[in-house]
């Protein structure tokens, strides 16, 4: 991802009110991590597993933060249980910022990621987690604001899957 796109992504998260981010880094979107870390209005929380990225962000949401979880799409699989029990069953809004590796629009796709990518959207659908695929920076700020509004309105996680230009 180009540095300018990373800056726009973080600015868009901030403009949508995101002020608390749990994360496990990966390769496609990782430039956002130092930008979030250096932003005094955003709290960045490193975790050991995406499952707790969900539960910690959910606790922060209940405590009044507007929380996002940044993860690779492999994290969808490891966090299914938390997404279902805390995200869906308890009904806690979260923005999921997901690097969509291995999908058709992943510009760095290979045999290493293709199976992971193939099942990501079906698993999100199975969990009932609504999602939008972003392949370029067009109307990025609007799309992120829409996603946060949708999460808050649904009282549920909402996923943004980043590929295309975001995976360069």
């Amino acid at each position, binding site marked *: 991802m180009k540095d300018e796109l990373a800056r726009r992504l973080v600015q868009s998260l901030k403009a949508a009110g995101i002020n608390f981010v749990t994360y496990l880094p990966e390769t496609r979107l990782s430039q956002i991590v130092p930008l979030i870390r250096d932003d005094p209005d955003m709290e960045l*929380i490193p975790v050991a597993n995406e499952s707790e990225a969900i539960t910690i962000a959910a606790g922060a949401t209940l405590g*009044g933060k507007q929380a996002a979880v940044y993860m690779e799409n492999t994290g969808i699989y490891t966090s299914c*249980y938390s997404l279902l029990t805390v995200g869906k069953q308890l009904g806690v809004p979260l923005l999921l910022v997901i690097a969509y590796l291995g999908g058709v629009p992943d510009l760095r796709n290979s045999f290493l990621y293709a199976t992971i990518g193939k099942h990501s959207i079906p698993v999100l659908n199975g969990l009932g987690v609504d999602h939008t695929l972003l392949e370029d920076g067009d109307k990025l700020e609007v799309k992120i604001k829409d996603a946060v509004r949708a999460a808050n309105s649904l009282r549920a996680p909402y996923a943004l899957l980043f590929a295309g230009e975001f995976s360069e």
Partner: protein
Amino acid sequence: MIRYECLQLLASKMSNQLVVTSQSGQRIEWSHLSRHEGNLLVGMMGCAIGVATGLALALPHRKVIALDSDGSVLLSLFNLATLGNLQPKNLVVYVFDNGVYSGSRISYPTATAGNTDLAAMARGAGIKNAQTIRDFEEFKKAGVDALIRNELGFFVCKVEESLMHREIPRPNTDLAENKYTFVRYLERTEEKAIAFVGRG
């Protein structure tokens, strides 16, 4: 040591603390002992410490308490490493360790009935005040003292297996109802609006 007695003592010390329970016997017992609006009765195992950590980070001036079980902590051991590094000073975790999967009704042993020492694991993960409490007198001291200390506490409370939670009434609140009571309580006591709560 009896879990209900420990919870009874903790309940008598509650004022404006926030309490998160996982799904196991202590969730039922705690809901019976405390009707406080700051109780969040999370409905599944393995999630309470994470949710409590998020609350503690979001509200660093409030004391947050997680009531958990050995089976539940074993489901989410990654929490230990994360807590060991984040060190939220306003969080106290009580793990009521009866050494069995009591809710399964066959009471088969958990790993803590064998060789696993959760307090040692927590210390190894970086949680300095992590200790095993084996009797009620010790709980009255170290367990209760943690409520006023400004330090992350992790207490593995070795308790007998108890079936009391099957004899007392289960909480009569829905998960969503409990969540909204909890966040409305926070809105009131923190004097700030929480974004996702409906208003009209």
